[in-house]
């Protein structure tokens, strides 16, 4: 559809705007707020996809990544049969010749679920007792038990989940979305990343490439907001320089740039000037955004966080604040779900760290009337084996890509439903099996974008978030 030339021309709007000697307001096109979407959600966007080919249901995405790969068998996929088989050999018919990670060459023995399950919501959906808060909003949640992925090691699996490819250098989904739709915020990034770490052991690393814009224009890269130090890198003024002095310097820079533009007539200068304005605005708006102490205590209690604690709960509250301020794609990582060992001891701690805040986020958005226009996605990068892993200490489970559970809420997704199922032992998804690309296709669909024509010319290919293999919008889960 659109090729790079088209995109460059779009960026070069500044070129024409320059004639008016403005300070680059038009150059800012994709950074400045669009006229806010009217309530019914307009099919226009400030990104390259405009008008949107589909009627959008969602305006934005909050993507909750449980990094490390939570066990579906202790969270959202109840397998009584696996409990019966506990300690018995895993049927060879299931596992023969299939890809394993750390269990390669080991004896494969069934490991029953470590926690009881409990029924929640009007459909009496069974989920682990570790998630009572999420259970309490089950009627807003669409639970998917038939998710699969291609990759089986953390790094490639994150890349696949974020970019639809296991090769580095591809744009992250947050970059695709902001590229396609633009941002609604003038002083905050369109694609924001927040990372928290469980109080557990030694969590898996997360690479910045997970929020890289790859071959898309750099302005679409994810900006990490940090809980300690400068919330955005280099956001703070140097020591000894007041905001007033900073302002004077920025004004001098812009003024000199403007004078120089009159000599060389260079459209990049108008853009440069507006970038300095935006940077200066961010220096004020980001600290304000990050300061959750302004929220009332009831709100802090609902999420279960304390200002400045850097917790997943704080990040959920920040996600809501970002959503209110127009960020397009907000991605949270909570690290340390990689339970090769100590599953029984550690998993409840991770669950406790996220359970209340996830439910609070759903409730909070709902009470503000924002849930229906915000798609929330909760997922790891893969699931875990029904087989025990005992070679790393007290029992755990290995990486597994044939089955995993995830859930979605809001943004045009049907609440109170369960989609898909795994086999009796939770080894492989077998009913309504879906892939990472299907989830991407569905997300884009909800945002008003047809995933098959949303392309960017890269290395000769019409590169897509949803890759080259066929993928589908999971219509069954849509409202």
């Amino acid at each position, binding site marked *: 559809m659109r090729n790079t030339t*088209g995109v*460059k*021309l*779009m960026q*070069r*709007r500044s*070129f024409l705007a320059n004639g008016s000697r403005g300070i680059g307001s038009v150059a800012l096109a994709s*950074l400045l707020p669009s006229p806010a979407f009217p309530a019914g959600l307009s099919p226009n966007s400030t990104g390259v996809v405009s008008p949107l080919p589909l009627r959008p249901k969602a305006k934005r995405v909050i993507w909750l990544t449980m990094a490390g790969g939570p066990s579906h068998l202790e969270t959202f996929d109840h397998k009584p049969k696996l409990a019966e088989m506990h300690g018995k050999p895993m049927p060879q018919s299931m596992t023969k*010749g299939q890809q394993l*990670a*750390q269990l*390669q060459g080991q004896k494969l023995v069934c490991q029953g679920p470590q926690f009881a399950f409990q029924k929640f919501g009007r459909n009496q959906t069974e989920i682990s007792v570790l998630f009572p808060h999420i259970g309490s909003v089950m009627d807003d949640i669409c639970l998917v038990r038939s998710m699969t992925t291609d990759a089986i*090691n*953390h*790094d490639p699996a994150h890349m696949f989940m974020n970019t639809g490819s296991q090769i580095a*250098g591809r744009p992250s989904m947050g970059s695709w979305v902001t590229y396609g739709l633009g941002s609604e915020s003038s002083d905050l990034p369109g694609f924001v990343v927040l990372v928290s770490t469980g109080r557990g052991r030694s969590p898996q*690393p*997360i*690479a*910045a*490439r997970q929020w890289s814009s790859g071959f898309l*224009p*750099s*302005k679409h890269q994810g900006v990490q907001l*940090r809980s*300690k*130090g400068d919330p955005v*890198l*280099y*956001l703070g*003024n*140097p*020591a*000894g*320089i*007041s905001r007033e*002095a900073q302002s*004077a310097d920025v004004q*001098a*820079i812009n003024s*000199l*740039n403007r*004078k*120089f533009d009159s000599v*060389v007539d*260079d459209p*990049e200068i108008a853009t*440069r000037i507006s*970038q*300095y304005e*935006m*940077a*200066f605005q*961010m220096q004020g708006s980001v600290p304000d955004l990050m300061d959750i102490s302004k929220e009332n205590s009831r709100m802090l209690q609902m999420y279960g966080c304390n200002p400045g604690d850097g917790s997943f709960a704080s990040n959920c509250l920040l996600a809501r604040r970002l959503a209110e301020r127009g960020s397009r794609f907000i991605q949270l990582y909570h*690290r340390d779900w990689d339970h090769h060992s100590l599953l029984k001891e550690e998993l409840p701690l991770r669950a406790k760290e996220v359970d209340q805040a996830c439910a609070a986020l759903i409730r909070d958005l709902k009470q503000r009337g924002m849930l229906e226009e915000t798609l929330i996605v909760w997922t790891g990068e893969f699931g875990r084996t029904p087989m025990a892993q005992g070679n790393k200490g007290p029992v755990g489970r290995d990486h597994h890509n044939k089955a995993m559970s995830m859930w979605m809420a809001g943004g045009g997704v049907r609440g109170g439903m369960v989609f898909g199922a795994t086999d009796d032992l939770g080894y492989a998804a077998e009913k309504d099996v879906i892939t990472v690309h299907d989830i991407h296709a569905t997300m884009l669909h909800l945002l008003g974008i047809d995933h*098959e024509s949303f392309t960017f010319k890269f*290395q*000769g*290919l*019409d590169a897509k978030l949803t890759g080259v293999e066929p993928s589908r919008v999971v219509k069954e889960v849509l409202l």
Partner: protein
Amino acid sequence: MRLTSMILLLVGLVVSKADASEELDFNRDIRPILSDNCFYCHGPDKSQRKAGLRLDDHESAIKTKAVVPGSASKSILIERINSTDQDVIMPPPEAKKKLSSAQKETLKRWIDQGGRYKNHWAYEPLAKPSIPSGQNAIDYLVSKRLAKIGLSPSEEADKRTLVRRLYFDLLGLPPTPEVVVDFEKDKSPNAYANLVEKILSSPHYGERMAIAWLDVVRFADTIGYHSDTSRNIWPYRDYVINSFNQNKKFDRFTMEQIAGDLLPDASQETRVGSGFNRLLLSTEEGGAQPKDYESRMLTDRVRAIGAAWLGQTTGCAQCHDHKFDPMTARDFYSLGAFFSDIQEAAIGKREEGMAVADEMQKQRLAKMDAELEQLRNKKPVVKEEITAAEKSRKLFHDSLPRTLVSVSMEKKRVVRLLPRGNWQDETGEIMKPAFPAFLPQMKVEGRELNRLDLAKWLVSRDNPLTARTVMNRSWKQFFGVGLSKVLDDLGAQGELPLNPELLDWLASEFIDSGWDMKHMVRTMVNSKTYRQDSRGSKELLLKDPYNRELSRQSRFRVDAEIVRDNALAVSGLLVAKIGGPSVKPYQPDRYWENLNFPTREYVADKGDSQYRRGLYVWWQRTFLHPSMLAFDAPSREECAADRNRSNIPQQALVLLNDPTYVEAAKAFACKILKSPGSATSDRIAWAWQQVLQRNPTADELSTIQILVEKRLHEYRNDEKSAQQLFNVGLFVIPDGLDKAEVAAWTHVARVLLNLHETITRY
């Protein structure tokens, strides 16, 4: 979008592919349409091919009557693209491709004109155009094209601009005001050429040239996957710098990197160069499967050859025959098989690598060896003396830097063609090294091909791709955009160069000169085309906004490394040493907090290492230094033939607030205060000269005067703030300077270092 269409229209007026009277050219006018819209199902990939039709193949197109030469009305192709029946129309609706009416018309006219095919331009042998004697070939070919489309070249840029341009393009450093003044004074006809020669002989030339090469071969200090731990590889970076400085011929440079261990005259230097084969990503992740990563490494290496030498996107052929180009999956794995002898653990920590001694160290080792030999021959033998000498030699040898190199194994890995790229499928045929079948072959008889053969084939005269790829990439460095703008793809989905003769001339000349890179650089920068003013008239900017036609120079922000180098150089902080271990500039705390196995604390360097050039900055693939990242330095996880040139708010935050730039401003302020004049206006003028090599305008002067007076007044009443500002960075304010003045002038310096003009090459 209306504006966009307007520009397209205007651009169309200049570069109009072909007006109605002109004969259409298959490569220029037809292939791009067919490739983008039809080849996916009717192209080289047989597994996807529908209806047995290949539109990339003349014979197939005619046999199926898709194309009936001379008669569009009888050609099924035309019938199908114009159909209104959803079941008949091509491309089919599910392909999400739509031909414009102009494209349909072009196809129709082409068939009516005879429907002639041509081989893809980049696979055709090089054809060196003849140039009238005494003319610069570049200027001749550019003006030929300009005359054809009715544009004329721009005037030569002013001398100051030329000096700055040459310095940034060839050295990556700003000139001093004295260099500019000298050049302005030099009225001799050879003044410019002499300046070029002087610059080309600087050791910083190699540093500048290395940047692009290090991108395309994905040089980095860390392994890339998962834990992203470090590995020993920096001597390879220095090898690249030195190679450019020695003007090592590009064919030799190629052979050393791909097969430096197999050369008959293999030496320490060529082995360090063979570290190229080790630049790929590797993992130490627990649970990673060796076969999986063996396959990743093979594909990584093939992609690197494709990117750096062939200008081909080989990646697709990992899973299936290429959709657009003739590269098959068989070609892909045969290329991969060239590397099956390289010793490389599929998973886990990389080995320490080969010890590398510089000249002094080599001499010292030789001396130790000689002494040891003497001791051994001494009668009577004193065992303790020998042991002590051996021990100290070992200690010394162990202290030498090490680097990953290629080591060839007797027992090679078995390379199979992996069906759909699936590494778990072991049913595929075993592959032997072979050159891609669609390219001219190089005869080797009686033995299996090896890496040295591959290298020789890449730089053989018959290979049509290497010289074109390398020259196209170099062109971007000096003119802002490649002659074919898709630097990593000279295939069907790339772009036919607007001036194919020019690219062919450059490529041919490159080979004829014996692959002499400096000769080519010299030829480019000495051309009038290069020396043009980069400003264009409003009309020209509208007609050719991206300067594809070269009727002016281009202007662009300098690369990430050079943004840094410029600030350090101007402020006097730069330590201009060449080579050595990578360095760690200041970096925000906890930037690496999401790294693990092990967790790492970033410790910024102290002393000279803090002030080294950007290309020596520690290249942590998963968390590249944020200031480098902000200015579009690639993470080098994949080969990057091209860099974005973005203009984003993070760049402002870096230049305003990164301690590196605050410190540079502070040091520069001290220099300004020690400059000859003491009047504010003198100081401002002096500072302007240092940064921009020009005098400030009256307007600029007054803006700065106001700024400095205000700040001075404030800092006089607020010593604490001044002191806080001084604490940023390691630089210590020299004695004898007025603290408030230093603080105030730091703001002036900061404004100057942030200007668009400062970081732009015009």
